């Protein structure tokens, strides 16, 4: 995988190739802690395991305890523990399991012990099998049965499997399936070996399963498999898998026959377990196992919903179907997924093992919240891993930049390039230099070093910071980045104390803080001239569409109030930002709104071929001074064009005009462009419809994401040079070639907002919220950022809404509080564990009042020659941010499918490396995940299901391009939320509680017919209403007698005077407030057509447009890992 790397490869390349670490497992395994659920736990073994899983605490006792830090050890212990538990399994395995183990040997041996373990073997097996995805078919039958089975089994998974399950499995299998199937099934069960073999790729089975066939098969089987898949999987999984064909068929049957399920249970448990494996295993394993076992334990709470009971009937018809085989479902899916990757994923339904058994993001988030929420995080320790982005905490800057400004994928860098390459964990930092700080944190101090400018290292030009070492009694300092010894300027001299620290250590922010600002001198200004205050230009498309939709009027009205709220410096009465107005269709209209005029004057420029700005004085004005004229103008604009029937527009000349205006006024600033359609008028940047769905899935798909060459490229450069940021508000009714239109915004630190088929009632408020946020947010202009590092490594790649003229300077026309740049680092040399690794990010920018400043963020990281340190200090949220950006960039240059493969491969490599180097030995069938990365697969799977990567012809090209571009500038919080939306149950709100209800996992299984759920991912927000929503709920929220009365297109909840309504609205309102983008609230009823939209955000489920379910993915990754390790 790694090698394949995208172009972007770097990241990948680093990664170490493979370790195939833990095959076993679903790494979930590792997670053990989490998965407490396994109903399975009940059993002795399981219990411990579970304990492990869920909360390390309980079960594993010592072992599990601290999940994170001690992970390893815990793991080991756990493992140890497990073994014990497992012991049973072994036995079991004997039947099925052992064999497996054996194959895997390493696995096997270790297997038992490793806690993580998930049964792995089984799981492995399952994997293969699951693929078959028998799921689907099975549904009906399965569900009931399966559920049962699973549930119960799980627990047993480990232990039980052997016994009961196997029987089931076999039984089921055989019955349903044809002999062969059964055979296979049997085989597996029988021969643990076979199973193993398969998974391993060993003999037939493994190979098969693994091999394409299985995949295909799965995919194929998809349906059939579906149900049974489960069963099949487990069992036959292997066997089946091998047979791929048969498998499926089998699966199908199996499904059909719940037997399968049963089997799965039975046989599977073990083998199946492969599937279950994970579940079974420690946690994951357990989980998996449970699924199977599930049945028996009846899904104890956890699964229950998903799996069993509910599934069955009510809730998820569909899903149910699929899942029905719950167990089955998942598995199948898995197989499908992996194998067929695409197809497979799609795979049907999988059955799941107990979903609760696999690592849960929600759980991770909640745990972190519980542990660190509300606490103070002091940045005084090098390499300290900060709380998750989802946790509320307070930062105290004590020498390192707040995680709000910088987050790293790992806080402990491997000390050599080799290590880095071995683990393949990308080393990157996500820098959000303008991040908003909560009110209770101190704003950055501004340091003024006088006329000579900030004190810097003479050689590498690093700025004075806490890492500089003062020597020679304070007369000289040694640069921490390049080791150059510099004279301390006379004015800056200070004596050192007995610790070797300067006496003014605490007085100077640049000596004691991680983040601060310098006042920049003329040397840092363009042309050595103090910049003018920036300007905002509002450029409104007044073509027929926008007039007709009422948009122009809406904007004009809003601007009147909005302009009062332009960002301004603390303590200043009015904003220094100037404003200007342009309207356009295929010609541009500039307005002279000089305060001295009685009326605004309009100047029409028709020369779109060579755009220019017709006036200077009076175009960019102070809003307060020219208020009367501007009001007059805003009143007149909608009327002036009311009769317009011009539908052609230009676009590039509009940007050009804004840029020229800034050039003429010698300032930087931002353009707000409100545009409706593809620019087809004769002018530079005229676009053609090049949307071709036939390209999807081919090598040429990348062209859909690539901007058209030419005008816009040049324009981007000019804009960046001038400090002209472009924000684009698009109101398209059809394809507009967003990839090209957004080219300039995406290189100038701008954003693109898109409102398909804009309708005043439905989207007006949504748009206005976006506009308000966008206009008011804090921002810096004409920025250049440089990331300096201490010797041994350096920044090599940069992702974001940026422009790079050379390899080091990150240029941004503007940078606001939501813009983040992801910087990837590579080794030049070995890093010293002693001194660690230092990063200094210096951002030179112009403030909203026109001052030139330098904002410095410093961060120190640990270095270690132990990979375990690296894995321990990883930050999944940052990792996924990096992967998202690099993958999204990679699809510009290579087929989407390649990119997906690379992602999976690298995931497998990273995990395999952990397994190989850090985890204590365990059965190969066990999936072992590093604690810090245990939810990584969920994100990764979600990432691969995002529109840009999924490659479905049903997704509008523009939407895919839009998402691709918007992610490029996102920070960690945003990608985290985007890839794992919050699904909040709203039906059982405690109206008196201050706290918002805890989110649940993004899976259909978590929905309830009688429930109401709020889902949001930072870009879209849904209020989902179950079919059986109680009327009183509907009444109190909507003031309607029943769900049936609900009309579509409601964009806001009615304001009703009852506690529930208030609470719901408050929650929504808070969310809207908190997110960088406003979201349109869409209300969907279960089973309504729009529900499809909603469903695509349930990222743990199989993707609507392709893509595996979480469970399937996990299985697939597991298999990959095992391959790597073998």
């Amino acid at each position: 995988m790694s090698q394949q790397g995208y172009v972007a490869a770097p990241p990948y390349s680093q990664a170490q190739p493979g370790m195939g670490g833990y095959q076993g497992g679903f790494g979930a395994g590792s997670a053990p802690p989490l998965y407490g659920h396994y109903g399975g736990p009940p059993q002795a073994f399981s219990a411990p395991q579970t304990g492990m899983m869920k909360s390390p605490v309980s079960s594993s006792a010592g072992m599990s305890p601290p999940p994170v830090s001690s992970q390893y050890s815990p793991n080991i212990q756990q493992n140890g523990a497990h073994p014990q538990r497992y012991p049973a399994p072994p036995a079991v395995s004997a039947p099925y399991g052992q064999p497996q183990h054996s194959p895997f040997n390493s696995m096997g041996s270790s297997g038992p012990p490793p806690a993580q373990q998930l049964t792995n073997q089984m799981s492995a097996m399952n994997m293969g099998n699951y693929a078959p995805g028998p799921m689907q078919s099975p549904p009906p039958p399965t569900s009931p049965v399966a559920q049962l089975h699973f549930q119960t089994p799980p627990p047993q998974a480990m232990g039980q499997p052997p016994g009961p399950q196997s029987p089931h499995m076999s039984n089921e299998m055989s019955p349903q399936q044809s002999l062969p199937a059964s055979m296979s099934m049997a085989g597996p069960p029988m021969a643990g070996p076979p199973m193993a073999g398969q998974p391993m790729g060993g003999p037939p089975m493994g190979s098969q399963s693994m091999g394409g066939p299985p995949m295909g098969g799965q995919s194929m089987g998809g349906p059939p498999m579906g149900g049974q898949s489960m069963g099949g999987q487990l069992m036959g999984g292997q066997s089946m898998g091998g047979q791929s064909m048969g498998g499926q068929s089998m699966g199908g049957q199996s499904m059909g026959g719940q037997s399968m399920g049963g089997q799965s249970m039975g046989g599977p448990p073990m083998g199946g377990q492969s599937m279950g494996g994970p579940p079974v295993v420690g946690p994951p394993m357990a989980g998996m196992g449970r699924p199977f076992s599930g049945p028996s334990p009846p899904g104890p709470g956890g699964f229950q919903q998903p799996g069993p009971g509910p599934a069955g009937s009510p809730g998820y018809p569909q899903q149910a179907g699929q899942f029905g085989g719950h167990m089955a479902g998942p598995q199948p899916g898995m197989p499908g997924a992996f194998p067929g990757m695409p197809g497979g994923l799609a795979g049907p339904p999988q059955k799941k093992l107990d979903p609760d058994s696999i690592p849960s993001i929600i759980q991770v988030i909640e745990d972190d919240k519980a542990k660190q929420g509300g606490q103070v995080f002091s940045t005084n320790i090098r390499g300290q891993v900060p709380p998750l982005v989802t946790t509320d905490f307070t930062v105290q800057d004590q020498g390192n930049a707040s995680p709000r400004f910088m987050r790293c994928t790992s806080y402990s860098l491997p000390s050599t390039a080799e290590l880095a390459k071995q683990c393949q964990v990308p080393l990157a930092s996500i820098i959000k230099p303008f991040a908003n700080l909560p009110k209770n944190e101190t704003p950055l101090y501004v340091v003024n070093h006088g006329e000579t400018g900030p004190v810097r290292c003479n050689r590498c030009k690093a700025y004075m910071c806490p890492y500089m070492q003062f020597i020679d009694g304070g007369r000289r300092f040694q640069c921490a980045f390049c080791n150059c010894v510099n004279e301390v300027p006379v004015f800056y001299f200070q004596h050192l104390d007995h610790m070797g620290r300067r006496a003014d250590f605490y007085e100077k922010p640049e000596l004691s803080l991680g983040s601060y600002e310098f006042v920049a001198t003329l040397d840092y200004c363009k042309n050595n001239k103090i910049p003018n205050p920036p300007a905002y230009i509002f450029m409104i498309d007044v073509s027929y569409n926008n007039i007709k939709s009422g948009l122009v009027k809406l904007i004009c009205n809003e601007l009147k109030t909005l302009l009062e709220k332009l960002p301004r410096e603390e303590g200043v009465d009015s904003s220094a930002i100037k404003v200007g107005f342009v309207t356009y269709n295929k010609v541009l209209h500039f307005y002279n709104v000089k305060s001295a005029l009685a009326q605004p004057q309009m100047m029409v420029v028709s020369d779109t071929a060579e755009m220019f700005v017709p006036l200077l004085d009076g175009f960019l004005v102070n809003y307060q001074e020219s208020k009367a004229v501007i009001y007059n103008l805003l009143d007149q604009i909608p009327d002036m064009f009311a009769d317009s029937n011009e539908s052609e527009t230009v676009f590039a000349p509009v940007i050009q005009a804004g840029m020229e205006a800034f050039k003429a006024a010698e300032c930087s600033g931002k353009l707000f462009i409100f545009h409706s359609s593809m620019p087809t008028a004769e002018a530079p940047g005229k676009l053609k419809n090049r949307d071709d769905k036939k390209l999807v899935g081919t090598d040429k798909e990348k062209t859909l994401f690539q901007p058209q060459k030419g005008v816009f490229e040049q324009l981007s450069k000019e804009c960046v040079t001038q400090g002209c940021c472009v924000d684009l508000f698009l109101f398209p009714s059809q394809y507009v070639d967003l990839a090209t239109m957004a080219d300039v915004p995406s290189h100038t630190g701008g954003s693109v907002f898109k409102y398909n088929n804009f309708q005043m009632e439905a989207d007006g408020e949504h748009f206005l919220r976006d506009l308000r946020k966008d206009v008011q947010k804090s921002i810096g202009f004409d920025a250049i950022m440089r990331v300096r590092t201490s010797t041994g490594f350096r920044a090599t790649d940069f992702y974001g809404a940026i422009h790079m003229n050379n390899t080091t300077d990150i240029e941004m026309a503007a940078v606001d509080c939501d813009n983040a740049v992801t910087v990837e680092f590579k080794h030049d040399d070995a890093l010293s564990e002693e001194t660690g690794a230092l990063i200094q990010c210096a951002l030179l920018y112009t403030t909203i009042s026109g001052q030139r400043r330098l904002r410095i963020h410093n961060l120190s990281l640990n270095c270690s020659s132990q990979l375990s340190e690296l894995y321990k200090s990883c930050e999944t949220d940052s990792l996924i941010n990096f992967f998202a950006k690099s993958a999204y960039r990679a699809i510009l240059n290579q087929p989407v499918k390649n990119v997906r493969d690379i992602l999976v491969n690298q995931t497998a490599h990273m995990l395999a490396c952990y397994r190989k180097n850090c985890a204590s030995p365990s059965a190969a069938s066990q999936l072992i995940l590093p604690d810090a990365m245990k939810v990584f697969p969920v994100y990764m799977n979600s990432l691969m299901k995002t529109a840009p990567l999924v490659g479905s012809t049903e997704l509008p090209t523009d939407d895919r391009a839009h998402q691709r571009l918007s992610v490029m500038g996102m920070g960690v919080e945003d990608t985290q939320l985007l890839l794992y939306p919050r699904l909040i149950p709203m039906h059982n709100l405690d109206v008196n509680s201050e706290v918002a209800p805890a989110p649940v996992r993004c899976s259909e299984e978590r929905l309830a017919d009688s429930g109401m759920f709020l889902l949001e991912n930072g870009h879209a927000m849904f209020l989902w209403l179950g079919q059986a929503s109680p009327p009183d709920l509907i009444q109190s929220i909507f003031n309607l007698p029943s769900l049936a009365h609900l009309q579509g297109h409601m964009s806001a909840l009615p304001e009703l005077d009852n506690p529930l309504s208030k609470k719901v609205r408050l929650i929504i309102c808070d969310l809207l407030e908190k997110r960088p983008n406003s979201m349109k609230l869409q209300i969907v009823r279960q089973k309504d057509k729009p529900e499809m939209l909603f469903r695509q955000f349930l990222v743990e489920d199989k993707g609507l447009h392709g893509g595996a379910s979480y469970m399937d993915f996990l299985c697939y990754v597991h298999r990959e890992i095992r391959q790597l390790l073998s």
Partner: protein
Amino acid sequence: MSTYQEFIQQNEDRDGVRFSWNLWPSSRLEATRLVVPVSCLFTPLKERPNLPPVQYEPVLCSRANCKAVLNPLSQVDFRAKIWACNFCFQRNPFPPSYAGISEVNQPAELMPQFSTIEYIVQRGTPAPLIFLYVVDTCLEEEDLQALKESLQMSLSLLPPNALVGLITFGRMVQVHELSCEGIAKSYVFRGTKDLSSKQIQEMLGLIKPAASVQQGRPAAPQDASAFCRFLQPVHRVDMNLTDLLGELQRDPWPVPQGKRPLRSTGVALSVAVGLLEGTFPNTGARVMLFIGGPPTQGPGMVVGDELKTPIRSWHDIQKDNARHLKKATKYYEALSNRSAVNGHSIDIYACALDQTGLLEMKCLSNLTGGHIVMGDSFNTSLFKQTFQRVFSKDYNGDFRMAFGGVLEVKTSRELKVCGTIGPCVSLNSKGPSVSENEMGVGGTSQWKVCSLNPSTTLGIYFEVVNQHNAPVPQGGRGAIQFVTQYQHSNTQRRIRVTTIARNWADAQSQIQHIESSFDQEAAAVLMARLGVFRAESEEGPDVLRWLDRQLIRLCQKFGQFNKDDPTSFKLSESLSLYPQFMFHLRRSPFLQVFNNSPDESSYYRHHFVRQDLTQSLIMVQPILYSYSFHGPPEPVLLDSSSILPDRILLMDTFFQLVIFHGETIAQWRKAGYQEMAEYENFKQLLQAPLDDAQEILQTRFPMPRYVDTEHGGSQARFLLSKVNPSQTHNNLYAWGQETGAPILTDDVSLQVFMDHLKKLAVSSSA
């Protein structure tokens, strides 16, 4: 003599024609030997209060290539109702409406006193007059204010139904839409980009871009309201436009230290021409360009915006060091031609202390009949009154301007027309009366004069083509017909027809008669026009040499002398003044560029080739009046000897009016004697020239520069540079006389000039 004087005067009064020769030599050979060609100054729209226009259309000769108009010289057979064309001898029946014609009932055009007659043509819809102001906004605040006021004032002078438009320019060019309510709207063009007429019209929304026009269909019908946005009837947008002008600001773009403001005159004109071209082709229109400096960017740029690079001087031009000259000239010529083709004229009002690029832009006015006015500032009465006078009215209350004139010249067989010199362009109409020999703008028998006023005068040159061996029968007459079609300021279309005839004379036998028929004033002006015309394209010294040679040849032909005896040289009275005119012409700014900027030269020449004979003569040889206690005011010699201490002199050079107080007078005035009751007569003496000057100021267009100076005053240079330097520092003491003032110059005096002339004329070797 007196008879010829009267004859000449009478002809001028009646027909507006002055011929160099009033008897024509009957053969080509003889004609060439006369040195001064058979030629005339023709004032097509000479004011004729006693000439009521007739309300019908002229009767034309039916021959396709003749089409002469029925005139008093035609042979008419009243009984047969037939007339013979006196140019081609074609016999034409009268149209039915002339059925009642008889010897006692003749139409006006047959009466001798109607050798000039004006017809009103009823065809076609009357087109409104159009005035398009093109205003430079890179002016000093004060200047701009004055200009704005003048423009606002002018709105009240325009005919109410006239259309007006406004284009302003500085760094950008703005075309103002006049019909809009609420927001003032304008279309802006970049000042550096040369646009085609079509692009301009597209950008103004006057026509749809080619791409969207359906093939096969002709360009979509123009939306009448579209062009009305920019050109609106005065009465409708009076208020709007007044406000708009009032709010006009100086060009807002900052001008860095050491730079000239960026002035896009070229593009502004191009837009103006393009706008009119697209909306009102072939309709009378005036583009009035007001500039306060040279074009500094874009096409038509005359000088860069660096102040350290001065605008080109004659010196630069001679050294081929004027880098923008050729390109700019070419650009403006192209514009002028486009404009002329559509009958639109362009006025230039240039007010600045430095040059404004008139040299390059002169063709705009020269070819389209527009005015050029040059002043120091818009805030001077010179500009204000001149501008006001553009809109002056005649005794009928009609504007003294006419548009879209087409002058056609028809000649009888013995003559052909060589060309004209004046504010016109050739229409390239070949015909039987076109000579191959070009003088001035030739090769055609029709010229377009886009804008005319009653004083517009063209010099028209002819060639006698009759062969020596085919003598004209005794008593035969040559005839010339001038047909001028134009749009009267009241929007009527009119045709004025002037038919004249002169006798043929055999140069060998009747040389005396021919000599006495010489109109030396007309001849001087006509020759001067030829000289000026040449000076536009040739080196100054070559032109002077040519003029000298012509003069010498003329003297040789008509002088009486003994060979090689200069003292014996004598000229007859009809030629006696001619050498003096030539002397002053040689020194005039029309041929001498020394001490004049290229702009000034262009300006002077511009006016010289369009004014009537009297004015032209003043330009060649300024008039000097003397006021003293010794007698009533009298004209005195334009000679340094006329400058006496006890005299007040009034000099009129057409462009300047100079009042010069002699040394003594100046002292008296300084002492304030005029304030004392007992010196009332002194006060009156001081007042007299002022009153006379005022009279001239009242009528002259453009307003002359008015200079009041005294002996020793710096402005006295205006006088000193014009007078014949009969006394200079070189000969002053030698003469030892107390008369006159010495002129500090090395120029030759008239005396010396004449001496040389005589010597050369009598030289047998010449």
